[in-house]
């Protein structure tokens, strides 16, 4: 098991390097630079001076190694769109709202979705099942900004219970978190339902009943444990995917989070921030997949490396 994990960590390092090279090359392959905007044109001489001061006049491989050397020392450079702070400072300022939004959205949406999916699978073809399916389909098909708009209309405009936007007081968090929870809830409900139904039709469930086990024990110990296998591989990476925030929800509720920077760093050719964001997401996904593989191996004796353990 230890060897397996060490091997996986080595492969993460490789993934990280490959992603960084590709992203760096693609980022610089996009024409234009940070000072080519038309809003406030600068003269060519000034542009050259700025580029030189930021090292942008050097060959690409030099820039790459300089940047990656910095990354290894937790120095992600300075964001061009906000030069008064380092990239790390920007991230530590903008990430917490996204983390709260995404984290709370998943932590609320996932358990609700799992319960809904379980209820649907156990009461198959009943009104609960149909309601859960309708709910899950709506949650996945209605764009999140439409859901956001509906929530603002009902709870902010008509009922006037909650603020329509902002991030100051915690009660302003309720609407964006609710909007955010819809997608994980819908996804988890669908996955849980199909995973449970898949296990419920397995012959060993009939054997468990024939042994005289209580239905509760069959469901909660045996069926859930088996259904969890395909679920963990989806859930952990999805959890990470949501923790980086949502561009749409943050824009709709004017949350000062990370979402907008994913777009602006590309349009403004903010190379340092763009690299930092993508490397961060890459690292989080790598860790999430590693964790989900470990959890999967712990839950599933059939793939435990090294045979019996």
């Amino acid at each position: 098991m230890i060897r397996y994990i060490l091997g996986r960590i080595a492969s993460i390092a490789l993934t990280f390097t490959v992603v960084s090279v590709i992203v760096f090359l693609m980022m610089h392959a996009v024409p234009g630079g940070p000072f080519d905007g038309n809003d406030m044109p600068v003269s060519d001489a000034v542009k050259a001076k700025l580029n030189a001061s930021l090292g942008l006049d050097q060959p690409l491989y030099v820039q790459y190694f300089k940047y990656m050397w910095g990354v290894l020392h937790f120095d992600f450079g300075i964001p061009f769109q906000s030069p008064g702070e380092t990239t790390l400072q920007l991230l530590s300022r903008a990430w917490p709202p996204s983390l709260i939004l995404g984290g709370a959205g998943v932590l609320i949406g996932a358990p609700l979705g799992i319960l809904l999916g379980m209820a649907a699978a156990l009461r198959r073809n009943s009104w609960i099942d149909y309601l859960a399916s309708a709910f899950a389909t709506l949650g996945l098909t209605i764009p999140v900004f439409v859901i956001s708009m509906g929530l603002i209309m009902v709870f902010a405009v008509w009922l006037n219970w909650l603020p329509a936007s902002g991030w100051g007081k915690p009660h302003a968090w309720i609407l964006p978190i609710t909007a955010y929870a819809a997608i994980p809830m819908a996804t988890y409900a669908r996955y849980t339902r199909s995973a449970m139904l898949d296990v419920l039709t397995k012959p060993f469930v009939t054997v468990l009943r024939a042994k005289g086990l209580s239905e509760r024990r069959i469901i909660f110990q045996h069926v859930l444990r088996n259904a969890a296998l395909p679920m963990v591989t989806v859930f952990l990476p999805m959890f990470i995917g949501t923790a980086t925030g949502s561009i749409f929800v943050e824009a709709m509720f004017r949350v000062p989070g990370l979402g907008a920077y994913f777009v602006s760093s590309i349009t403004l050719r903010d190379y340092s921030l763009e690299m930092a964001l993508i490397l961060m997401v890459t690292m989080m996904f790598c860790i999430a997949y590693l964790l989900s593989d470990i959890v999967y191996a712990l839950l599933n004796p059939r793939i435990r490396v090294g045979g019996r353990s």
Partner: protein
Amino acid sequence: MPLLDIENLTVSFPQHEGVVQAVRGVSLSVAAGESVGIVGESGSGKSVTCMAVLRLLREPPARIAADKMELAGVNMLTASRAQLSASRGRVAAMVFQDPMTAFDPVFTIGHQIVETIRAHRKVSKSEARGEAANLLARVEIKTPEAILNSYPHQLSGGMLQRAMIAMALSCRPQILFADEPTTALDVTIQAQILQLIKDLQAEFGMGLIMVTHDLGVVAETVDRVVVMYGGRVMETAPVQDIFDAPAHPYTQALMASMPGRSAGKQRLVEIPGASPNPSNPPSGCPFHPRCAVAEARCAAQVPAFKSQSATRAAACWRLP
């Protein structure tokens, strides 16, 4: 009072194209300690009958009706969930066809036997584990401790079927349902497993229902045979009589089609036609379209199940 007493059991599955009638009025009784073989081709309703008795079919879609369905004095038609759980495993245990899919893949064999014991009796985990080891030794497993700690995927089919039998016997059931227990196994293992079931049945003094399509299995393990066809019982008789003097034309045809019953090289005898479509069964006797000696009334009316002697009965118009 018989241990298992079924009168006029019907099991049907409503579907879009119509109602599939899997079991159409089966009556069956098994005395304590008696071993009965239910034989029939695929779709004759033999497995469904067993599943229906323990209420293991999903209802709905399955619809079960009977004039009587008692297991050790408990009316299984009206039994509560708790009564069913108490009967299953304890009064009647079941051994299934495919041992490779019969165990939960994420728990050890030991865990699954121990949980069966502890579902029915108040014993400690370590006591239950000790009993499980003894049971595994009893089903001729050489290294019980190693098997207890194994996961299902680590064992062979024959090994798993032995463990399955040990698990079924763990609560000393009064009757064992064995639903084609050797069909999924290697031929070399089949005979060992059958001998084991037969020995254990005698040792534990329990009733046995051996469901199979293999007449050889029946000849080796049971006292009495129930022949099913098209969801109905065609004939029941002591095992020797079934082989020596089958009364019902269907049983006669079955015996004639067994390979190697007559000397010399010859073409295998077959029963013409195909088994009845369960969603649109023929009128009258289900076997009449394939029966060599069918008469007009065979298609018109279902023959009654009549006793020929104290031990034999059959449903055929041509029999007295």
